């Protein structure tokens, strides 16, 4: 192996390029692992993006993969590429905490299916990322493992709950990461950290041995710096899993195959009275500019109305309250003081909804899903902001969207991510601008069930035409 690239140059490579260079023999897996570890050591005291770093294990795997490659054997498309996992995704024999004190000593006996699939594709798992405790919250202000900070400005939050994954990727400490998304937990930190992330169609990716937040809405998905990288990681993890009965036998495709097909003729739906209502001005400006870019590339923008879209935040909060409180019921009674203040409060609240509240919220999901599926007769995708504001200060529990009005963070942050979560539709978060403080803005592309390939295609066309994804934090 030989390379003239420095560690700093290596970590700047997109995942797809790093994989190519490993395949060609220009870069070794050990070089990539060392570059990532060096970067983690340089920035993570400040960012707190990781709970556990597998320095020795990752180097050992990298050396083995180097030997395999010299013998002409490659595990798969991600051979030799270091990636990180959110710490609610189990890895056999290695501590998995879900960002909690309660699971601090848990050593899983089996890999989560997504972890096993990444290993099979050749990815090297370099560490477990910090997160909002048990994924129940959107700030990643973790009282047990440190408040995660935003690489674009460490005084700002990284969103969550997959905030560690978002910060880790944006800070160039890993070439990609897995997150989990119940109410927005992949898409929110993707937008706030200026990276790409996909919440898949419910059932497209296995949840086996992933610690649940809300069973009926939980998903796992990749977070990377480019759409192409995300599609490559998605190739490795998508598909039915006999160990997760909620994953149907819908065929998977090569999600990178259509990335260069462009957007000519694609019909983009917008819901003006919801998607462009109650936003910080830079967010509205950036998403409207993105729509103009799509139109310039040959797409058409169609205004659509979805009669019952109002109500989605309440439905989401109800379901996301009740289901975690069922999962945590024993611990909440036996070890309440071991939860952080905010998560304990949310779990207590979840016990106090009625079954009728929960079931009406689940009926609302069916109504909203039917309306979106009907709307997809006239459009191919929807585009909207990922969230209505840019990164707030670390530790804040409220946010000011409109001047002088403080709002509860949890409800405000879910304004747009709740729709795909409730309807089970796939949603791709893509960077689309920056605010006046150089903080990233993201948009969401929402697709039809199992139509992730089209979302990747649109996202790739947008990144081909823009440079937001090429900018890096100066950390």
């Amino acid at each position, binding site marked *: 192996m030989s390379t003239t690239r420095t560690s700093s140059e290596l970590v700047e490579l997109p995942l797809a390029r790093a994989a190519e260079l490993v395949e060609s023999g220009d870069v070794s897996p050990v070089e990539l692992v060392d570059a990532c570890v060096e970067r983690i050591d340089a920035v993570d005291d400040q960012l707190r993006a990781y709970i556990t770093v597998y320095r020795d294990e990752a180097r050992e795997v990298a050396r083995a993969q180097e030997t395999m490659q010299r013998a002409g054997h490659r595990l798969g498309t991600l051979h030799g590429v270091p990636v990180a996992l959110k710490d609610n995704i189990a890895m056999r024999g290695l501590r998995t905490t879900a960002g909690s004190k309660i699971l601090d000593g848990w050593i899983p006996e089996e890999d989560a299916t997504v972890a096993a699939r990444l290993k099979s594709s050749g990815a090297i798992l370099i560490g477990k990322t910090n997160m909002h405790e048990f994924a129940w919250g959107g700030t990643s202000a973790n009282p047990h493992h440190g408040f995660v900070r935003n690489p674009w400005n460490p005084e700002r939050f990284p969103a969550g709950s997959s905030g560690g994954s978002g910060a880790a990727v944006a800070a160039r400490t890993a070439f990609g990461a897995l997150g989990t998304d119940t109410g927005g937990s992949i898409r929110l930190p993707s937008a706030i950290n200026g990276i790409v992330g996909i919440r898949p169609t419910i059932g497209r990716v296995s949840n086996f041995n992933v610690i649940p937040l809300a069973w*009926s809405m939980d998903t796992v998905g990749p977070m990377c710096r480019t759409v192409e990288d995300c599609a490559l990681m998605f190739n490795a993890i998508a598909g039915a899993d006999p160990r997760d009965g909620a994953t149907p036998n819908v065929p998977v495709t090569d999600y990178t195959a259509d990335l260069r097909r462009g957007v000519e003729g694609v019909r983009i739906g917008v819901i003006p009275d919801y998607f462009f209502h109650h936003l910080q001005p830079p967010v509205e400006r950036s998403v409207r500019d993105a729509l103009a870019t799509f139109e310039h590339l040959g797409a058409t923008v169609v205004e659509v109305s979805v009669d019952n879209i109002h*109500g989605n*935040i*309440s439905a989401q909060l109800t379901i996301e309250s009740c289901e975690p409180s069922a999962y945590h019921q024993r611990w909440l009674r036996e070890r309440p003081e071991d939860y952080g203040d905010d998560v304990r409060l949310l779990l207590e609240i979840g*016990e*106090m909804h009625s079954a009728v509240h929960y079931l009406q*919220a689940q*009926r609302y999901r069916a109504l909203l899903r039917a309306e979106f599926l009907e709307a997809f007769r006239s459009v191919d995708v929807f585009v909207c902001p990922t969230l209505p504001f840019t990164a707030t200060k670390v530790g804040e529990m409220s946010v000011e969207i409109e001047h002088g009005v403080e709002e*509860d963070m949890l409800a405000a942050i879910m304004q747009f991510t709740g729709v795909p979560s409730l309807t089970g539709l796939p949603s791709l978060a893509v960077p689309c601008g920056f605010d006046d403080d150089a903080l990233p803005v993201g948009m969401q592309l929402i697709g039809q069930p199992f139509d992730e390939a089209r979302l990747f295609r649109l996202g790739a066309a947008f990144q081909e035409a823009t440079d937001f994804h090429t900018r890096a934090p100066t950390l």
Partner: protein
Amino acid sequence: MDQETQLDEAAVRALALAAGLALPAEREGLVAEQLGPWLSAANQLNRKMAAEEHRAVAPITAFVHPAGEGDES
């Protein structure tokens, strides 16, 4: 906020009792403050979903058949 779902500490105490949750008294106010607006919104959604036009809508709940169930042996 709906008047009907403005919660006080006594109401939270009753809900905790019904749930079998031993909620310390000092937490009742915290819970009431956050839960009140959420229940108001949930009750509003209840009214929407109870409307005649939505009577036929069934909840999204799933019975999942484990792999291999129903296979011929």
